[in-house]
């Protein structure tokens, strides 16, 4: 499976605590200091007017970060745009680490759940949302999770079986 465009979303542990507009200032601050490693941070876009939308978006050359509101569940979403090097496991590891870096930067503002999150294959050509692809993706995800989180046990499920949607894996800690 040759997928480069992965995404990951870590849910906020306490959704009512999220004050969406605060992230405008926070993300502008990140740009001022170019805080996120290996990323060229470019701009902030306010999508708070869209119901269950991308919330507040931080645009970077390598990938976008957002305090995302999809499904009404706030969370830090990172979607990779530029290719990374190495194997698919390497790609996923890089992407998980980038998202975790952003989560760490937000410590003090908001807490994230590490026992329940989503991994997105943002590539309908190489990773259509079907059983076959899910089967191919599972070992890649497991290996990447082990590299990032050690020997924690996770259950991997397909988030939706709607073939129009992207292949999204729900990762739940046991």
């Amino acid at each position, binding site marked *: 499976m040759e997928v480069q465009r992965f995404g990951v979303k870590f849910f906020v542990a306490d959704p009512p605590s999220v004050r969406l507009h605060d992230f405008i200032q926070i993300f502008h601050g990140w740009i001022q200091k170019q805080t996120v490693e290996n990323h060229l941070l470019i701009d902030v876009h306010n999508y708070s007017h869209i119901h269950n939308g991308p919330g507040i978006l931080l645009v970077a050359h390598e990938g976008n970060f957002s305090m995302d509101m999809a499904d009404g569940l706030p969370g830090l979403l990172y979607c990779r745009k530029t290719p990374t090097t190495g194997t698919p496991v390497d790609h996923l590891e890089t992407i998980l680490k980038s998202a975790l870096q952003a989560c760490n930067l937000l410590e003090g503002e908001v807490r994230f759940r590490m026992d329940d999150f989503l991994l997105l294959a*943002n590539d309908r050509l190489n990773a259509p949302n079907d059983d076959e692809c899910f089967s191919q993706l599972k070992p890649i995800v497991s290996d990447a999770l082990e590299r990032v989180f050690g020997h924690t046990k996770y259950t991997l499920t397909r988030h939706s079986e709607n073939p129009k949607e992207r292949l999204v894996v729900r990762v739940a800690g046991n």
Partner: protein
Amino acid sequence: MPTWKEKLSITMEPQLVEEIDAFESQIALRRSGKLDEKIFAETRLRRGVYGQRYDNGHRNDGVRTQELNFSSDLTKGPDTLWDAPGMQRIKIPFGGVTPDQMDTLADLAEEYSDSVLHVTTRQDFQLHYVHIDDTPNLMRRLAAVGITTREACGNSVRNVTACPLAGVCHGEVFDVTPYARATAKFLLGHPDAQGFGRKFKIAFSGCRERACGLVNMHDMGGIAVTRTENGMEKRGFELYVGGGLGAVPHDAKLFEPFLPEEELLPTAQAVARVFARLGEKKNRAAARIKFLVAKLGIEEFRRLVLEERKTMVPDPRWTGYLPEVAEFKENPLKEPVPLNGQRPEGFEKWYSTNVYRQKQAGYAVATITLPLGDLTSSQMRQLADLARSFTGDNVRTTVEQNIVLRWVSEADLPELYRELVRMGLGEPGAGTIVDVTACPGTDTCKLGIASSRGLAAEIRTRLAAKLFTLDEAVKNLHIKISGCFNSCGQHHISDLGFYGTSRTIGNRKVPHFQVVLGGKWEDNAGAYGLAIGTVPSKSIPEVIERITGRYVRDRNGNETFQEFIKRIGKQELRGMLENLMQVPAYEKDRSFYSDWGDPREFTIGDLGMGECAGEVVSAAQFDLADAERLVFEGQLHLDSGDYAQADALAYRAMIQAALSLVKTQFQSVRNDSDTVVSEFRARFYDTNILGDRYAGNKFAQYLFRRHDSPPHEHTLDRARRIVEEAQLFIEAVYACHDSLTERGSAPISIKAVGKP
């Protein structure tokens, strides 16, 4: 690894396959430094690939101007970095989209953009933060569902718009949809519409009275009219030309009170030819057709167009579509059933503002109010499914940045509303004062001065809460906001319009908006508003409160807002706003020194060069760039061992280059190779124009030899030679073209047009 190119090539129209492959080659040429950045900029703009704010590599972060250190210094246009995110505009003629197209648009927004689709004030979609390297695949996926991005930007015929109620409106004379579609198709890529100095916008309306297609503000527009001839009703158009907004708005001029339907396309073509020939090319601020019409006067302009019309060789496409017009109809999915049964909470308010009962009894148009014209991929996909369940293919975007579902059986409206609420798209207020229109402004536009979207969001939030308690006269006013004077938010034709500007207070910049009052949305953009004065951005909500409050209190009977503004007069209106024009000192209130939704201290240092007009590139330069692309592709085939294809492409490249020169003298030349070679020989070889200073005649022999003696067998040596010769021939043509341009003889003369 599979590719979209392989997967979709059989589902795309062959012409689109070729066009998109060509664009991909042009990307490769630019990447390798073989295509000039100006020509590439206009090339990508004509495919809808636009620059965005900060793509010059600089951005003020509120404290200082940062250099955005992209890894590559390659450019995709003057002062426009390759790796900087850009915008993809997607043309939707008359706003018509199908559910399958909506699904694809949703997928593209997720995979290449930020999962948001933006509806523009001209019925297009826009995706932001797109990387240029993704655009060929994005275009292929669109092409596979019948959408092209061609000529979505640049100096070309832009999206042809039409009233979203066309075909279902009580007041229309007839349905303009098939005419809008035919015009869009006919002019797309038409050779006579390639040499403009600026963009060209066309709109169609079914009636005069409503806002409809906003004909009055378009470069060319048609209003449906009929007349009786020999006892038969005949269709035609009241045709207007030379309208436009921009910094200085122009009312369109009546070109013809009744243009018969069969004359629509040839007249459009003749208008395009006159505009291409006589329109301003160097000064882009005066290059729209409105300036040409104003300069010549409508009578002279009409005379020139009619003269041009007489010279044109008949084209079967002019009338070929008319049989389809008679048969054109939309198929509703459901039977017409009157509204009945239980109505969910909130339905009545939504119904009062968002539902239009069609002229076809039992059917309605439901408007989906999109805040700031935005919706997510997920919402788009769900909306596509709703269309499949309720209306079939009958979906359109609107110039008020909304989406309408047409042919909804009225009995389905409550269930449709429930679904829309579930999706977060059940907001009432379509077409009312809360339905604020705004261009992208400083969010993404390089020309934006102040935050039009930030202001629009603020106004919307404040007014939405009290929409149904507002006085009826105020409720139905329109607010439109542009981030600068260029009017993309259409502020001139709004009751309350605003455009972004800046003022210096102390040593600091403060975002302001010019207040423009009394423009008219109805009557096809019937009147332009009156500029009253410049007010700090943070005081604009109070301006709205004050003006609308006075209107409610002081209007005479049923006096319209336009009449009220006219009666009160500029001086008094300005007096009403005088104290709101003041800016408190920075130390006293810093909020005035930042824009809405943006905590950075305000600056205009991020302003870039606009790409709206594109670069003025002559048709010959385009043709030559295409010749270069062909020879480049020939080289690739040579490298892969396909000598026959290398030879064929190199030959085509030489023909294309020769054609580019011939067309500077004889625009209507046929493009078959025999004619091109013959014309080229007579005009540039026998006359020694090509060979005079550049030994070009030697290179012309390459063309003649290959034309007269095509190879019987294809070998590496022969293919390599023809590719090299083609490159040399193109260089000679370039040199000749440049020389003629310097001498001022390259532009097509009026006498030469259409006359061999």
